[in-house]
C-alpha cells in the first residue's frame, strides 16, 4: 500500500508540473514577461492569483511558463546522461576485464567532480545559458548511468538465458540489444527519475547563481534569486517558486522510489 502511495503521489506531483507546462503553451493569465509598473508587488488576489513581482509581472504566469524550463532542463540533462552513460556501462560490462575496469575508473574520476562546479565552468567558457548548464549537468550525470547500467548488465550477462542465446548463435551486439537492455530498463527508468529531480534542483541553483536560464525566460530558480532583495517584505515571491521547485523535485524522487519498489522485487525474482 505504502509503495503504491509513493508511486501515486509522485505521479500526481509530476503530472501537475507537466500539466502546468502544457497549459502554458495555450494559456497564461498574463504575458509572463510583460512589465507592468502600476501593478507591481500586488499580493495574492483574484486578479493575480500569486500576485506580481517588483516589475509587475504576474507570478502565476511565470510559474506556468517556468514549468516548461524545468522539464526542458530535466529532459536535456537526463537525455545526455542516459544516451551516453547506458551504452558506456553496457560496453564496460561486455568488454575485456581490463578495458571495463579502465572505463569504470575514468567514470569514477568524472563522478568525483562536482556537477555544479562543472556547470559553472561551462557557463564561464561557453556563456551562461540553459542548454550549456544542462549539458554540463548531463555530462556530470553520465557516471551514475554508466554504473547502474554496468552492474545491471553484469548480472544479466551471467544469466543462463544469455548463455542460451550464445548457444543459439547470437552475437554479442545482438545479445546486448535483445537481452541486456530490456532487462536493465527498469533500473535505468528509476535512475532517470532520480537524476531528473537532481537536474531540476541544479537548474534552480544555477539560475539563482546567474549561470542558468537567462532573463527574461521565466525560471523558478531565477524567480527565487530575484525575490532575494525583497525577502523580508514580500516572502511570497520566494515562497511560490520555492514550493514549485519542491513539488517537482519531490514528485520525481517519489516517482523514482515508487518505481524502484515496483520493479525491484520482480528483478530479484527474475534472477
Amino acid at each position, binding site marked *: 500500500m505504502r509503495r503504491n502511495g509513493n508511486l501515486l503521489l509522485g505521479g500526481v506531483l509530476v503530472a501537475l508540473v507537466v500539466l502546468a507546462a502544457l497549459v502554458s503553451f495555450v494559456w497564461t493569465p498574463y504575458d509572463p514577461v510583460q512589465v507592468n509598473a502600476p501593478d507591481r508587488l500586488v499580493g495574492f488576489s483574484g486578479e493575480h492569483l500569486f500576485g506580481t513581482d517588483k516589475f509587475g509581472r504576474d507570478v502565476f504566469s511565470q510559474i506556468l511558463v517556468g514549468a516548461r524550463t524545468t522539464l526542458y532542463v530535466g529532459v536535456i540533462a537526463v537525455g545526455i546522461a542516459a544516451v551516453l552513460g547506458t551504452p558506456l556501462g553496457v560496453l564496460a560490462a561486455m568488454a575485456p*576485464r581490463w578495458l571495463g575496469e579502465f572505463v569504470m575508473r575514468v567514470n569514477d574520476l568524472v563522478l568525483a567532480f562536482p556537477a555544479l562546479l562543472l556547470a559553472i565552468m561551462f557557463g564561464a567558457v561557453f556563456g551562461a545559458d540553459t542548454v550549456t548548464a544542462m549539458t554540463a549537468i548531463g555530462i556530470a550525470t553520465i557516471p551514475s548511468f554508466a554504473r547502474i547500467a554496468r552492474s545491471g548488465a553484469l548480472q544479466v550477462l551471467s*544469466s*543462463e*538465458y544469455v*548463455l*542460451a*542465446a*550464445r*548457444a*543459439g*548463435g*547470437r*552475437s554479442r551486439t*545482438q545479445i546486448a540489444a*535483445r*537481452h541486456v537492455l*530490456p*532487462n536493465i*530498463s527498469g533500473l535505468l527508468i528509476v535512475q532517470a527519475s532520480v537524476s531528473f529531480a537532481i537536474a531540476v534542483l541544479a537548474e534552480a541553483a544555477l539560475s539563482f547563481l546567474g549561470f542558468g536560464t537567462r532573463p527574461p525566460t521565466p525560471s523558478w530558480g531565477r524567480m527565487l534569486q530575484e525575490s532575494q532583495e525583497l525577502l523580508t517584505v514580500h516572502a511570497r515571491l520566494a515562497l511560490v517558486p520555492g514550493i514549485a521547485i519542491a513539488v517537482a523535485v519531490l514528485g520525481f524522487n517519489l516517482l523514482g522510489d515508487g518505481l524502484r519498489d515496483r520493479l525491484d522485487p520482480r528483478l530479484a*525474482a*527474475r*534472477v
Partner: protein
Amino acid sequence: MTLEVEHLSVADLVRDVSFEVGAGERVGLIGESGSGKSLTALSVLGLLPDELRATGSVRLDGQELLTASERELSRLRGNEMAMVFQEPMTALNPAMRIGRQVTEPFRAHRPPGRPAAELLDAVGLPGTARAYPHQLSGGQRQRVVLAMALANDPSLLICDEPTTALDVTVQAQILSLIKTSLSAESSLLFITHDLAVVASVCDRVLVMHEGEIVEHGSTRDVLTSPQHSYTRRLLAASDLEATR
C-alpha cells in the same frame, strides 16, 4: 554429422577426454556433479567461461571447433549444433515474449523461418506465443527451450541435464519429446546423473569421474556389467528398478 572429441582438457577439471558421437547416435554422458560433464559440453560449443581454456581437439564433421573464430562458432551454434540447459526457470529471457523467443534461432540464422505458433504447437504448447516466461510452468518453459534448440533442426543436440529441475511426470514428457522431435540422422549428447534417464534415451554411454572418462560402452553393457569401480558405486547408489 559426426562429433569427434580428442584429448580434450580444460584446466585440470577435464583431463584428456576422447569420444565420438556418430550421425544419428544417442550418447549419454553420466557422472556426478563436478565431474566435468558440463564443461565438456560447453567446450564443444565454445562457450567456456573466459577464464578457462580448452586444449586438444573438437571436430564437427572434420571442422576444428576449438580454434574456430567466434564468428564461425556463432554460425554453427543454434544451427548445426544446439543445446538445452538444465534450469528452465533461468534459460528464458524474462522480458521477451515466448513467441519471439522461440523464433530467435531463425532471426540469428535464416529468417524468416517458421511461425512461432507452429514451433510451439510441435512441443505441445499451443496459444502461448504472447505469454511471458513467468506465466509458464517449469515443464512448459523447458518445452520452449527445447523448441528453440530444435528450431533449425540441428545435426547435434547437446542436452545438459534437461530433466534434473523437473518433477518425475514432467521429466517423462520432456524425454519422450526429445526422442520424438529429434530427427533420426541427428546426433544427441545427453548429459545426466540419472541412470534411469540414460537407460531410456541412450544407445551408448560414457562415464565421467573427476574429469576423466573412466568407462564407455553400450548402455546395456555398462548398466548390467560395469567394469570400473566408480560405475559400480554409481549403479549401487541409484536403485534402477525403483526409478524405472
